[in-house]
């Protein structure tokens, strides 16, 4: 699709490319001569593929890694990395506007330099691309092949005209943005995460379709970068599946930033009119029409399962849910495994990496590691952030696990108050009648950092009573976790215990 406001290929290479391209897909790259047989052939060099390839090579396996695009995958090129980079810049602008709340004057005439924000993002992306560069991979003994992989049978895959034979293979081809089925959208043109980070000029008005993590993060980032943002979500709340109270706080935060919010509002039609994109949004039968310059969609991701001749390898898949795997991440071909977005329900970089580690163990070292044993946290990096680990109350009830939630409001946490970051809460769900943590949700400026203490507790089977013994430096925001543990301890102080303690103390005075 030709787009005026998106970097053309050449400019892309010249202005932002050198470092990134040299690291992730050098123009002069020559695929190596394949070995007779590899212990492991990995398809896709995103987080999952990289972890598997480097991990296996580090343990002495002969490894081939096939990538059709860039080393680093979605995460580096058009996902986590660029999005978090611009979120940081956007937060700075928000804080400038909010300076008075920090006892500082609001700088006069704050003018957003959009190209500078995008330039910083591209620069940082280039820098981070060095950590997993193709040169490093080669040094570590990984044979990197650029090109599209295609299975030639149950034990062989072809790339760039050569055939690689494998003992085991890993499919880690990731996912791509789903295209919303909205009449007129394709004709009018729209952005996805695949090209939104290539924007050069700041659009004046942007419609974001989809209130999941991607939609919410980018809507907030672009709004704080001075774009008039409209966010339309067909569900009644943002981040469906997340706790209602978290979604509530997020929705308030986005509105306070100035985002025009349309919940419960599917976009039903798009048309071009004098260069503008005119959009119809429906809410309970009421139609609203708005005009914007750009539309960004974030309505979910489809696994990349097509074009690889998975059938030839006997690997079953579903175009919605991806490659079918068992709990050991084995596909319907016992030699072939899958990891990351192409097969997981929870599509994150860390889950892609964790699943890839399982594959290395199971495929090459007779491991019996299970996907279901993983305890995967996640975080949406809006401001405030929303992080979660374990199960939700809803799921607990479905599984007949009675839960009780200990909630600490961030406005009761000294450091959060001092930092002017009081929005949010820590909720720790325990199995009722015990101190066993079954899940937690944190909404806070740094929720993603704070959740780790709880993930660790769940992993090691540490309960709230033990967490109450953990000493946190004062003042820190993460001490909210200890405060929740203290609240738990207070509920253990039954009337009987209290009476006993009173009697004991009175005795001491006698």
């Amino acid at each position, binding site marked *: 699709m030709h787009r005026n406001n998106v970097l053309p290929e050449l400019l892309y290479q010249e202005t932002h490319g050198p470092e990134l391209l040299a690291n992730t897909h050098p123009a002069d790259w020559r695929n190596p001569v394949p070995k007779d047989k590899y212990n492991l052939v990995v398809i896709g060099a995103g987080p999952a593929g990289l972890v598997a390839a480097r991990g296996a090579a580090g343990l002495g396996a002969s490894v081939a890694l096939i990538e059709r695009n860039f080393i680093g995958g979605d995460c580096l090129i058009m996902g986590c990395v660029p999005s978090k980079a611009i979120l940081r810049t956007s937060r700075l602008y928000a804080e400038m*506007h*909010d300076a*008075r*709340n920090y006892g500082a004057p*609001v700088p006069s005439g704050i003018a957003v330099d959009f190209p500078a924000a995008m330039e910083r993002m591209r620069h940082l992306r280039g820098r981070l691309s060095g950590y997993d560069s193709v040169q490093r991979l080669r040094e570590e003994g990984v044979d990197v092949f650029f090109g599209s992989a295609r299975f030639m049978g149950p034990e062989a895959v072809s790339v760039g005209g050569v055939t690689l034979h494998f003992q085991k293979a890993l499919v880690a081809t990731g996912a791509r943005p789903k295209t919303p089925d909205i009449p007129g959208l394709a004709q009018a043109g729209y952005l996805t995460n695949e090209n939104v980070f290539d924007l050069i000029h700041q659009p004046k008005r942007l419609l974001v379709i989809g209130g999941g993590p991607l939609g919410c993060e980018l809507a907030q980032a672009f709004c704080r970068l001075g774009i008039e943002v409209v966010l339309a979500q067909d569900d*009644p*709340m943002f981040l469906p599946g997340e706790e*209602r*109270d978290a979604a*509530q*706080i997020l929705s*308030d935060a986005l*509105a*306070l930033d*100035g985002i025009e919010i349309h919940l*419960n509002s599917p976009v039903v039609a798009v048309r071009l009119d004098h260069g503008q994109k005119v959009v119809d949004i429906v809410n*309970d*039968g*009421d139609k609203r029409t708005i005009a914007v310059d750009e539309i960004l969609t974030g309505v979910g991701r489809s696994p990349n399962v097509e074009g690889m001749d998975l059938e030839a390898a006997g690997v079953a898949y579903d175009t919605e849910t991806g490659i079918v795997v068992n709990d050991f991440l084995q596909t319907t071909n016992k030699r072939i495994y899958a990891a990351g977005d192409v097969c997981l329900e929870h599509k994150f970089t860390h889950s892609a990496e964790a699943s890839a580690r399982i594959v290395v163990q199971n495929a090459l070292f007779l491991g019996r590691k299970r996907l279901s044993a993983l305890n995967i946290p996640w975080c949406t990096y809006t401001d405030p952030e929303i992080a979660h680990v374990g199960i939700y*109350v*809803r799921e607990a*009830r*479905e599984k007949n696990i*009675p*839960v*009780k*939630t*200990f*909630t600490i*409001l961030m*406005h*009761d946490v000294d450091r959060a*108050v001092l930092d002017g970051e*009081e929005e949010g*809460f820590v*909720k720790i769900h325990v199995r*009722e009648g015990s101190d066993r943590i079954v899940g937690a949700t944190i909404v806070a400026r740094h929720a993603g950092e704070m959740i780790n203490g709880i993930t660790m507790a769940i992993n090691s089977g540490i309960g709230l009573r033990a967490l109450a013994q953990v000493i946190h430096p004062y003042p820190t925001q993460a001490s909210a976790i200890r405060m929740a543990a203290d*609240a*738990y301890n*207070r*509920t253990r102080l039954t009337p009987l215990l209290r009476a006993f303690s009173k009697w004991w103390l009175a005795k001491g005075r006698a």
Partner: protein
Amino acid sequence: MPDARAQSDEALLDRFQHAAFGYFLENCNPVNGLVADTSRNNSPASIAVVGFALSCYPVGVERGWMTRDDAIASTLATLRFFWNSAQNEEPLSTGHMGFYYHFLDMHRGIRVWDCELSLIDTTLLLAGMLTAAMYFDGDSPRETEIRTLTDALYRRVDWHWAQGACATVRQGWKPESGFLHYGWEGYSEAAILYVLGLASPPHPLPADSYAGWSSTYQWENIYNYDLLYAGPMFIHQFSHAWIDFRNIRDKFMRAKNSDYFENSRRSAFAQREYARRNAHGFVGYGENCWGFAACDGPGFETLKIDGRKRRVFGYAARGIPYGPDDGTIAPWTALASLPFAPDIALAALRHFCAQYPDVTQADRLPSGFNPTLPGRGPGGWISEGCFGLDQGLIVMMIENYRSQMIWNLMKRCPLISAGLRHAGFTGGWLSQPEARPDAQK
């Protein structure tokens, strides 16, 4: 206006209850019994407010604020209107499947504002009808007609349809677009809806629908209170205006060793705790200045107040501790906590009287006020006029505090006790002989 400080609690409450009751006499269309949603010009009727009106008339009769004859006349006008009103799928009818549109034209009695066919508001209307049917137990033809019509109106409601093929009831329906898409999960004011729905002989809600709903509950320890959480206070009040939840427990509350009355009490205290902390730095908030619920507000906009960006809302549900909160206090919801937490409710009322004479004038509490915004007096922005829902709740909750009259009436209502039992409630007054179905007259 007498000085509240010099008045006894009883006198002060009588004053506010009487004033609130006056709302229904002033804002009722005697021809069809419809009562305006608010005291503002051209306000349409709200069916929920009609339900409150029907529940308040017996209080007025007992307190000598209305004759029994007048109460019967108003009640009959209402019931006859609804019985004869248009029930169909047309966009301009009065109701459908036995339910009614949330807002009706005061005179023509048909849907306005393209509003939804409202399940909860129909429920509150029916609760009012049932209250009337319990109170008017005489043998005269008119009192008999009240009971017959109520029974017919109740039986006409198709609760089963209202599930829209889902596990729990939907929030509403529109002829243009069908059932509303909003999720309606978590603890809410819907308890009485399930109670009435479960008890329906012809079209009951299935027995597991209540379990389905309560499976979305969240038991939380907030500010050191163990509670079944819901942010806006009215959620902890509406069903309680009719049903005495003291010591009766469903499966959920048995497991938590609590009951819904106790839960409302703790929720009132949590509201007060939230106001004491005043984390957002709103003007006025404090231990005697709280009350967060669905109420009117200054209007939807973003303002800069003292260098701080603030978003304020119009009519919206406000809640604690996660918000939304725009500095608007719903004073009536503090007062309506009276049966649960009399001390703090009375302290709040006295505080409103002493600090905000502009808010409490004429003894009728407005839907909301916001001292953070500029206004003519200390109350800052004050919602114009008053809302029938709030006034009705005040009349009933003060009455339940003073005499438990409504609770006692409804304890004898076989539908209520049957519905509660279907929902799994046991114990307390439900196990006493007069609440047993065989003891009904």
